[in-house]
């Protein structure tokens, strides 16, 4: 079981009278892309939020590198090396690219209350990072709101890559993007995986899941109903599994 990076077992979560997760379980292997697919309301986002610390599950266990973990805030998840790129990107529009890349992890110099930002160093490092990842953005001092959708997504992913130590979670990474931008973001994801990171991706786009992932988990009505290797399943079969038209492949 050495190649299992993350394991979620029997995760349950109820919001008021709504059972969002009814004992969902899945695993993600180290160094590959694992996809979670499912219809709206199937519980994908809730499950992912349990892993990122935004939601604390009512019951169930989360294991990372074989160790049980319990996250009660995004900070804990990040401390465990998990970075998340949210569907709504979680970027501060009016702040610059470098400020977003270093958000809440700013480099400072000084002691006690007299700690000042190392602005120059952060700008230089941010510049190097976007260049290394071949992210196509203008100067890192530009505010994020001036970027295109693809560039924004690239910045969000770059931030994940910059800080992740082992696992990056992408929630609908290309939902709002055009074809060309989608291809660029997918290229970026591939480079990240080739560099040894484990990626968990939530997607509506079955073609994309086929292109990117090695393993796919299907969610329906708060449960993970099927897990298959991507190469063993066709696009139509995935659609069938998601809608419940077919129950297994």
């Amino acid at each position: 079981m050495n190649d299992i990076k993350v394991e979620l077992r029997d995760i349950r979560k109820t919001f008021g009278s709504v059972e969002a997760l009814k004992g969902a379980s899945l695993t993600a292997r180290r160094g590959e892309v694992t996809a979670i697919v499912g219809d709206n309301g199937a519980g994908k986002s809730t499950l992912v939020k349990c892993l990122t610390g935004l939601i604390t599950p009512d019951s169930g266990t989360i294991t990372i590198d074989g160790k049980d973990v319990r996250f009660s805030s995004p900070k804990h998840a990040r401390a465990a090396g998990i970075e998340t790129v949210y569907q709504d990107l979680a970027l501060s529009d009016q702040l610059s690219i470098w400020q977003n890349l270093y958000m809440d992890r700013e480099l400072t110099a000084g002691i006690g209350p007299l700690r000042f930002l190392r602005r120059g160093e952060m700008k230089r490092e941010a510049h190097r990072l976007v260049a290394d990842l071949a992210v196509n953005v203008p100067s890192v001092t530009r505010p994020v709101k001036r970027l295109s959708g693809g560039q924004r997504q690239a910045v969000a992913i770059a931030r994940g890559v910059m800080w992740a130590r082992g696992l990056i979670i992408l929630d609908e990474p290309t939902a709002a993007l055009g074809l060309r931008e989608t291809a660029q973001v997918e290229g970026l994801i591939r480079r990240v995986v080739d560099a040894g990171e484990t990626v968990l991706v939530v997607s509506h786009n079955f073609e994309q899941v086929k292109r990117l992932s090695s393993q796919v988990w299907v969610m329906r009505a708060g449960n993970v109903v099927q897990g298959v290797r991507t190469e063993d399943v066709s696009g139509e079969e995935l659609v069938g599994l998601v809608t419940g038209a077919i129950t297994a492949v």
Partner: protein
Amino acid sequence: MSTQTSPVDTTNPITASTRTLRRRLANEDLWTRATAPVALVLLTVTFTIVNPKFLTWPSLTSMLADSTIPIVLALGATFAVTLAGIDLSLASTVALGSVTMGLAYQAGLPLWLCCLVAMATGLSVGALNGVIIGWVRIPDFIVTLGSMSLVMGLSLIFSQGKPVQIPERALTFVSITSVGGIRFNFLIALAIGVLLHIVLFHTRFGTHLLAVGDNPDAARAMGLKVARVKLAGYVICGLMGGVGAVLLTSYIGSSQPATNTDYLLKAIAAVVLGGVSLFGGRATIIGPILGAILLTFLQSGLTLVGVSAFYSPLVIGIVVIAAAMLMRGRK
């Protein structure tokens, strides 16, 4: 850098430079930042043409001294507005701080301690606002509308509406003494401005304040403690109200129990003129300072050219709405 450049830019430098120029002019930041300085220059030129006395050193330095309290309050309001909020209680905080300072003086406390009491009063009002806005999650407008009346009431109750004379030379010193004509109180306001500039742009807290003001949900997702950041922002705002109270008491020589709502209006107006986004997340320190100076110049200038003081709120109101519309038009 993998900046994408179209072939036109590299082959034709003239097209490229006009393009850069056009992009700069289309940049709304430039316009919002330019509003206060450009208006200040236009205003100074206009008033000087009508009455050359406007642009004399004694007149300028006296107007700058008058702008001290508006500057300090505008700096405080900047921190609330950067959080996409507002602090309507700012002017009554000045009154309450002045009252507690007078009471402390009556109780026989040393002057420096009286000043600290005024600042602590402002800080407490800010903390009250911040806690209710951050944790109880009631909109800032309602919270500070309530605390405005609450604080106003407290200062009337504590003082019984009566001012306390503070005949201390050390206190009036800052309002009277000058360095080369520039009064101490104005220099104090500038020093506070420098300090707050460092806080806003060179500390982690400043970045977090901008991020929370820009988008609280994104900030929360990044692990920022949104409520705590808001509390700190309102505490700074309240503290500036306390500093304003000390400066006002120093200026007048006695405590001032009555709330002067003109201070609130001017502070918010200066922030808007200074190009700080009312929707949060974008701020400067120099902008509100220039905005406050602009409004003071406007008021003094109108008096100097013989316009009745009754017109001054009207003109300030028009200027503020025009500035806000200008910014909106650039979006």
